[in-house]
């Protein structure tokens, strides 16, 4: 028998009955829901949530309280919280003069994102771009009648890069929802010396099949479900940019009939050169021309497992191979103990 003592710390909050923190690659900002018997936190109070076990716990959420509900008969407070990026989603960009929208010229992707974040008063920002990508070369990159987050989302969609918040800081980098080797990145970036994506965890059932792994295996899987489908597969990408700029990338898929193309269209005024349109088409084709292999994993709680990490899975019945991207993770503390539920994909 193994015993683990649960740890939860939320300043200015007592009688914590449950915590659910949801982080997701596809979600604007992380969401935390707290049920407690008493709290001094009010709307927009800063909140941090540190949880795990008494011998190993981590700060998993930094954000603000966005709603407070108090219910009878149990008298519990329900706090709904969002991380820093909610400000970017809430800040709508509207120019007083429609002819003069917010815009930037000849600006790198990371600086453009940084300037947009400042519009939402977000200043704690750490971009780690792997390569240079310049917007507004031929015409300004302009945004109007969109939220800051939607504007940033458009940049991320063209590059297949990603923006996220952790510990109150916003990050912008090339995170793709599938595993890449250093050679894959060398090809994308046009320069050598890139490293493979890092495998953060090897999750397994109690039947440890491979005794020696790096990192060591964690026998914590309590439930597992594997699904393969072609639902999200797209083997043709058509890009439409500013004026007459277009690009197309396509490839045969071994999972579709010959000459059968499932097409996705990407249209953005940010794309103002043929080279950028081609890069956008190629980045997105590489991302989308693959089977949708997903898995739902229930595990014992582990506060070092986070969204956007890559993991390996050892489960002898379904025998999933390769490396998996954590698309969504829920850290849940309740009467049922501390558990995590992961949605992963290849």
């Amino acid at each position, binding site marked *: 028998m*193994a015993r683990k003592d649960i740890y939860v710390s939320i300043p200015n909050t007592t009688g914590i009955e449950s915590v659910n923190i949801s982080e997701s690659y596809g979600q604007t900002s992380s969401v935390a829901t707290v049920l407690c018997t008493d709290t001094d936190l009010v709307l927009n109070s800063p909140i941090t949530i540190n949880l795990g076990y008494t011998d190993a716990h981590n700060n998993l959420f930094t954000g603000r309280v966005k709603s407070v509900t108090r219910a009878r008969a149990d008298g519990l407070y329900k706090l709904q919280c969002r991380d820093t990026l909610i400000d970017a989603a809430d800040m709508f960009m509207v120019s007083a003069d429609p002819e003069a929208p917010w815009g930037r010229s000849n600006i790198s992707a990371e600086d453009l994102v940084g300037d947009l974040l400042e519009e939402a008063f977000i200043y704690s920002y750490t971009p780690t771009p792997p390569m240079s990508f310049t917007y507004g070369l031929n015409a300004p990159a302009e945004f109007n009648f969109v939220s800051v987050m939607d504007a940033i989302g458009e940049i991320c969609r063209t590059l297949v890069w990603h923006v996220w918040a952790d510990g109150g800081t916003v990050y912008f980098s090339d995170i793709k929802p599938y595993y890449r080797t250093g050679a894959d990145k060398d090809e994308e970036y046009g320069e050598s010396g890139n490293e493979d994506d890092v495998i953060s965890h090897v999750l397994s059932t109690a039947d440890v099949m491979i005794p020696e792994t790096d990192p060591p295996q964690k026998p914590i899987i309590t439930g597992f479900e594997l699904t393969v489908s072609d639902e999200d597969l797209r083997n043709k990408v058509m890009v439409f940019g500013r004026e007459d700029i277009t690009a197309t990338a396509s490839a045969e898929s071994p999972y579709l009939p010959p000459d059968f193309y499932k097409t996705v269209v990407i249209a953005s005024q940010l794309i103002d050169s043929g080279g950028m349109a081609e890069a956008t088409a190629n980045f997105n084709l590489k991302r989308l021309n693959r089977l949708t292999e997903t898995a739902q994993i229930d595990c014992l709680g582990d506060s070092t497992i986070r969204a956007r990490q890559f993991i390996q899975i050892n489960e002898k019945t379904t025998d999933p191979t390769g490396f998996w991207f954590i698309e969504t993770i829920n850290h849940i503390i309740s009467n049922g103990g501390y558990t995590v539920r992961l949605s992963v994909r290849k």
Partner: protein
Amino acid sequence: MWTLGGYRVIVNGDSGKPEPKISEHFVLDGTESVYHYFGYGSPTRTLTGHLLDNPDDLPSLVALCNTATPSALVSDQGAEGDYIITSIAHQRIVDIKRVKPVWRLTIELKKA
């Protein structure tokens, strides 16, 4: 002599059942459980006994229960602290030797 909230109860049974907050988990293919421990609730105890010569105290004890009023428990060993009466099951029983009603009580308490 036992009293609860100042009312005398003839106690012939005193039991408790600690309930630490523990959840049990099973890792797939495992051969033992993993337990998550996250504290424990207030002590609870159950008293069984009778109201004999002071049956009018029953409505007072019921009132303490209905209002969840912390009530001092005194046992034959001395003061036991304040408890909330979470339930009080009462059943009138026949005792031909007595003129006043006799009540059999089962009182559930939670430490205040």
